[in-house]
């Protein structure tokens, strides 16, 4: 359990409010990590989702609004092609 939590907290996600269209695929994939606030989804840092669930949530976003980074190194894990976001 402890190990799982540690691996989870290495991941950080953020939702670009200028892109988000509240389709809520992210909260369907990782309900504890994404929540609708007003017109857009936001990332909930204190969550029980696994890294895979968060990555899958990011990939599911039809607006490519979610960026996932590795917390320690700052390496961007998703999207892997920066062009997807422009």
């Amino acid at each position, binding site marked *: 359990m402890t190990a799982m939590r540690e691996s989870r907290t290495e991941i950080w996600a953020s939702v670009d409010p200028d892109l988000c*269209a509240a389709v809520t695929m992210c909260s*369907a994939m990782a309900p504890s990590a994404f929540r609708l606030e007003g017109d857009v989804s936001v990332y909930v840092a204190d969550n029980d989702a696994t890294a895979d669930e968060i990555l899958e949530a990011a*990939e599911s976003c*039809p607006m490519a609004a979610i960026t996932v980074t590795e917390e320690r190194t700052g390496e961007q894990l998703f999207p892997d*092609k920066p062009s*997807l976001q*422009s």
Partner: protein
Amino acid sequence: MVEPEAVAVSADGDGRLLTDDLFSNQSIDHPFDFFAALRDADPVHYDPRWDGWVVTRYEDVLAGFKDYESLSSDRFAGPWGSDGQRPSAHEKLYEVLSDFFVWKDPPEHTRVRGLMNKAFTPRSVEQLRPRTREIVQDLGASLRGGRNADFLNGFAFHLPVIVISEYLGVPATHREDIKRWSEDLGGVIFVKAGDKDRKARANRAVEGLSSLFRELVEARRSEPREDLLSGMLQAGEGDDGLSDDEIISNAILMIFAGHETTMNLLSNGIVAFDRFPDQWRRLQDDPDLVRPAAEEILRYDGPIRAMARWARSETEIGGQRIKPLDRVLLVPISANHDPRAFEDPESFDIDRSPNKHLAFGYGIHMCLGAALARMETQEAFRFLAREFDRIEVAEEKLQYKETIISRSLKTLHINAHDRAIG
């Protein structure tokens, strides 16, 4: 609260609102002016002809899209449940259309959309870009040196049908059938109902499409390929998966939804650039602007004028009480020109930022094919701006189909001036 009758026929203070009739020439041919007047005069307006509320301000349209719990998308229930939408002569049409997931509410909508979503994410769609580029090149050849070339039927119609047919896994030998059926089906979904011939044609189209997809589903079941039908079958294996009928209905939905709307989006883009030639120059000078340019075409003159909903429970939009079973028409083409949300909304600015238009809707029903439509539009205009110095609209008067739902030109001929190779 404004009494509906108070603004029904007369002019407003500026004398601009001459009519509130959604089906008037003013509304069909000049929706930007028509809705500008309605937006100011009566933003949540009761239209007795359509028999429902017409919502035109950005903030209210957005709120309407978000309020999916009160505002149902189910086109086969509520006020649409018992008004003769189930004609016994067109059983197949009814059966297939009623399975379209766009017209479902949660939890059914959530289940099917969740299964379909993966195939239409920006990343999945990116895989289709190279092939789309080739198709654009092939189709674009027909426009070259063209005086009076048929852009709508010669280019815009083919591109989305070919892309989605190939993605689904429909063999090229069936492409002409697919195009014809898709067109016939469009005739009943986007155009005013009540035309018996049209319904009969649409019913035949749905029968044709159903039997084709049933065959293909069987073939893919025994021999899966790297296509969307195989993907849907795979997604169908779990307890919550898709039944064969659902796969077939939604394959038909993909064909149809990917065709009519993108075709109109491309055509409306040509018209916008013709109206704003400086923006065409800008795109030629900086082809990377094609991404924001596609968004601006969507905002400025997107393919969907309006989306219909009905109230499952009492709700409120822009201070107006909406009673159970009331119909509600959310009008993104108006919201996207609302000066309360966009600076200088009547100017077409291909690098507009921010540009949070509602052309694809918003919330849980936001267009599943958005990334695909974007990619196709980007590739089409990247090619066109590279190849053609100017594209002139060669219609004496632009004519739009008499529908309140889609923004569809009847024809679009162009003079495409080849670009001198420097």
